[in-house]
């Protein structure tokens, strides 16, 4: 049987990926953010993880307004990265867990989450930066990934409760998958964003999220999407990716380690590793 061993939420602002690419993790003002991942590397290094589900929001690469899915699940055999406007990136390839992704797709639709399925998907910095933070050595990366894109860019946006419940349904789907599979979920985005007129770094709210997401997620899911925009900025709704991750971990997971770093670029930077509850 498949099992969900844990999950992690992390910020993904482009400067994090650029810093990794330049190997300058120790030289930047937010170096403690990178050091906080030492505990994550120890944790994932001592476990077998076959598949990473990566939850992120598109950054104007996969989807345009002609066809904007609220929830889009990758079901492809292979994923590559792409040019987001900065120039052609160093090519990366990630094997898709096609068998599990179709099982999740079918389970979600049966559970009345009418997602879009994507037979092709390009990974942007949000998905890849998160993977690189957790598994800096490509050799240790899980064999397979499944990307899930949440619309956090073009309103109407899904509510925090809906995203949390989607995560719960994904957790149920994974746990009902018959083949052996050890699965880890990454939520990539947030937290609060400084955006001039449309957002401010809100340390109090960011810390509230870190303090409650494990044991009292309903404190976050009680907010509307518009209220999250007011609290965390118009791009702070990337927090939805963390709620999907947390929902997938089910009842009574346990925080392993977390870190808050303000600012990273124009955001409240954060990381939290959560261990899934033991399979019942």
């Amino acid at each position: 049987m498949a099992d969900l061993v844990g999950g992690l939420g992390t910020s993904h602002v482009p400067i994090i990926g650029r810093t990794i690419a330049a190997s300058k993790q120790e030289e930047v003002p937010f170096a403690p953010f990178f050091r906080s991942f030492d505990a994550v590397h120890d944790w994932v290094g001592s476990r077998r993880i076959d598949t990473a589900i990566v939850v992120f929001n598109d950054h104007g690469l996969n989807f345009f307004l002609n066809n904007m899915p609220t929830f889009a699940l990758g079901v492809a055999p292979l994923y590559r990265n792409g040019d987001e406007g900065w120039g052609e990136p160093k090519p990366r390839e990630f094997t898709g867990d096609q068998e599990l992704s179709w099982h999740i797709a079918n389970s979600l639709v049966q559970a009345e989450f009418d997602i879009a399925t994507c037979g092709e998907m390009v990974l942007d910095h949000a998905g890849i930066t998160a993977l690189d933070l957790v598994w800096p050595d490509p050799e240790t990366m899980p064999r397979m990934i499944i990307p899930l894109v949440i619309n956090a860019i073009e309103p109407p946006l899904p509510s925090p409760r809906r995203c949390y419940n989607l995560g719960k349904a994904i957790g149920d789907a994974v746990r009902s998958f018959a083949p052996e599979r050890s699965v880890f979920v990454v939520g990539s985005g947030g937290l609060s964003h400084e955006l001039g007129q449309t957002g401010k770094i809100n340390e109090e709210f960011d810390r509230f999220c870190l303090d409650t997401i494990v044991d009292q997620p309903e404190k976050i899911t009680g907010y509307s999407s518009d209220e999250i925009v007011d609290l965390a900025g118009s791009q702070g709704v990337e927090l939805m990716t963390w709620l999907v991750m947390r929902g997938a971990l089910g009842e009574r997971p346990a925080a392993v380690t977390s870190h808050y770093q303000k600012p990273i670029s124009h955001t409240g930077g954060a990381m939290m590793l959560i261990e899934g509850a033991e399979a019942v």
Partner: protein
Amino acid sequence: MIEPGKFDLEGATKGYALNRMCYTLNNAECRAEFAADIDAYCSRFGLSDEERAAVKSRDKDALIAVGGNMYYFQKLNRVKLPENAGKGQNNG
């Protein structure tokens, strides 16, 4: 007033052509064509004078006011313009 991240009809219906143009800037050839002649490129996508002025200004508030979506118009700052080197912040 359009508030990014929140639904309203004005935000949903304004700026489609502008956003569509910005979406093409993921492509290197399109970025080169844009940089070579911004007016011609904007005309090809049917941008209004107001949208065109916002594009040239690279001003976030002006772009939002004409219906620009940040996740698309952020790509404007990634285009290298010889005469405007270093202009605009690239906080992507």
